């Protein structure tokens, strides 16, 4: 992507962004106050978007910001405010036994990652830039049927919510 900047700088940027993503995600999980947790999650999404940009995928970076950091976070905020969940003093932190499965899974994932890295699976060093046009052609020609199925699915998500929401009001 950045042909004008030196590879060292790209690598440095990558490590900074990766650290921000991991730290922000850990805080998003461990933070008691839901609104603070959401702010940390947004930070993590922004760092992730920048990472995608470094990987020569500007479109995914844009989607990450618009859809995740934008739309979905706003939805989370709405739900938290509607259900009035902003009282963290009433909730208890999960105990050790509730953390244990997550820790075990994280350990297993790290070990698997270590094994994969030690096998040195080659990663292509230069990826071609994918334009919006390429994505659109791929999406609506090759996977046109998939788009139709997803749109039907979204329609019926609304229909189902409407139908099941009538419970008790008939």
């Amino acid at each position, binding site marked *: 992507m950045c042909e004008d900047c030196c590879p060292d700088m790209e690598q440095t940027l990558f490590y900074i962004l990766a650290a921000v993503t991991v730290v922000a995600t850990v805080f998003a999980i461990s933070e008691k106050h839901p609104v603070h947790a959401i702010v940390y999650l947004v930070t993590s999404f922004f760092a992730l978007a920048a990472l995608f940009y470094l990987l020569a995928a500007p479109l995914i970076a844009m989607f990450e910001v618009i859809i995740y950091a934008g739309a979905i976070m706003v939805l989370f905020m709405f739900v938290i405010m509607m259900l009035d969940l902003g009282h963290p003093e009433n909730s208890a932190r999960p105990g050790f036994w509730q953390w244990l499965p997550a820790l075990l899974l994280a350990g297993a994932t790290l070990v698997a990652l270590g094994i994969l890295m030690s096998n040195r699976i080659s990663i292509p060093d230069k990826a071609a830039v994918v334009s919006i046009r390429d994505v659109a052609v791929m999406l609506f020609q090759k996977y*046109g049927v998939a788009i139709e199925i997803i749109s039907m699915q979204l329609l*019926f998500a609304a229909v189902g919510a409407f139908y*099941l929401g*009538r419970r008790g009001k*008939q």
Partner: protein
Amino acid sequence: MMATDFWIALPLLLLAVGALVTLVVGAISRNDSSGYIIAIISALGAACCTLQAPPVGMVSTLGLSSTSTVRLFTSLFCLMAAAVLVLSKEYNKHGGNRGEEYPATILFTAFGMAALASATSLLTLFLGLEAMTFGFYILVASDLKREASVETGLKYLLIGALSSAFLAFGIALIYSVSGSLAITQAMQTTLAGSSVNPVAVAGWCFLLFGMAFKLSLVPAHLWTPDVYDGTPAPVTAFLSGGSKGASLLFLLILLPQAADAGMLRLPFWWFALLSMLIGNLSALRENRIRRLLAYSSIAHMGYVALALVAGSFSGYQAAAYYAVAYGVISLAAFGAIAVMERNGCGATLDDYRGRGARNPFASGVLTLALFALAGIPPTAGFTGKFLIFAATLKSGEMTLAIIGMLTVAVSIYYYLRVISALYFNTSEQTHQDQCTIGEVVVLSIASASVVLLGLFPARLLALLTFP
């Protein structure tokens, strides 16, 4: 879009447009039956379209296949949707469940199944399965009058979401190894047989575990009895016959494309063994009829896993035959239960005592379906089990085949318990139950198919071809 594309996509289009028209008409007219009639007509129309062969020689650009197996399963799903709609019309009217969303959702579920059946890429395959599951999330909780149906719906939703996550992750790993979403290429690279890629193995583990949830194979079976017990009976017929059939088709689209599916022999071996044992043994002590049939469903998926252990052409053919046969048999069984429940029958075996005299038609259909599930000739259940055990013995899995036959013998006991409750316990005669013409037609066709499929399996087997 060429004429061939249109021809191949026509059943899908009919189902989708039918669902939309049902919604629109329901919004205009206050009469529920118009929605049901439109939905039934579009499902039947889609089934008729698939029966005609598309013009050969031209290649579709949509990425949808239309082999004889695909068309057979698509028409089966459409016909099943039409049958379930006919049964639901009376059942929901009696239960006081109104709304055009219900028939539209049934059509949407059939749309998902049909999309799955004709998929040639992993993406369409997964989305078809998801669309079907999505429809069932709504249908399972559709009984608005009962509080318990919320619980059932939530249980199914959580399990369904979990299994979809497993599936999506497995497909992603398989894609990362093969670099292609096209099924043929993905299967050739990840199930190559000679060199085993660890990432591909991880992907297949996730995929198989996700499918075990959908097929309710042990150890991912615990949701089945609760969901079967809490859903409206016509939906249970669709869930048991349609969703199991579609999930099996999912595996039958993938596995025959593999260069060497030997890697999957071991997981299927354990799935088959545990499902046959635990399904049949749990059903022995069960007193609620729908839970009994749910455990029997787990056992039957175990038999199908047995056919997949064989991994040969005849094994896949037997599994596909069993998917069709089990679909028709569950339609007959749960259809008959729907008719009886509409006439005020309860859920336990005691409530079924003496029903043979009160409702001879529905009891007869239920008895035939139970005989078929028990594998008594000349029904489709017998022929299916025969094909499965023949394929397994041919592939050399002697131990597992013998255990399977023993569990089939054990299962006859609990099926006969239901039949003896129906006929050999005469209660005081009150009045005769009523059946509508639609119910009689649907149940008659289903029962006739159970017998005809069992007597003449060759015609069906000729249509079930795998590469």
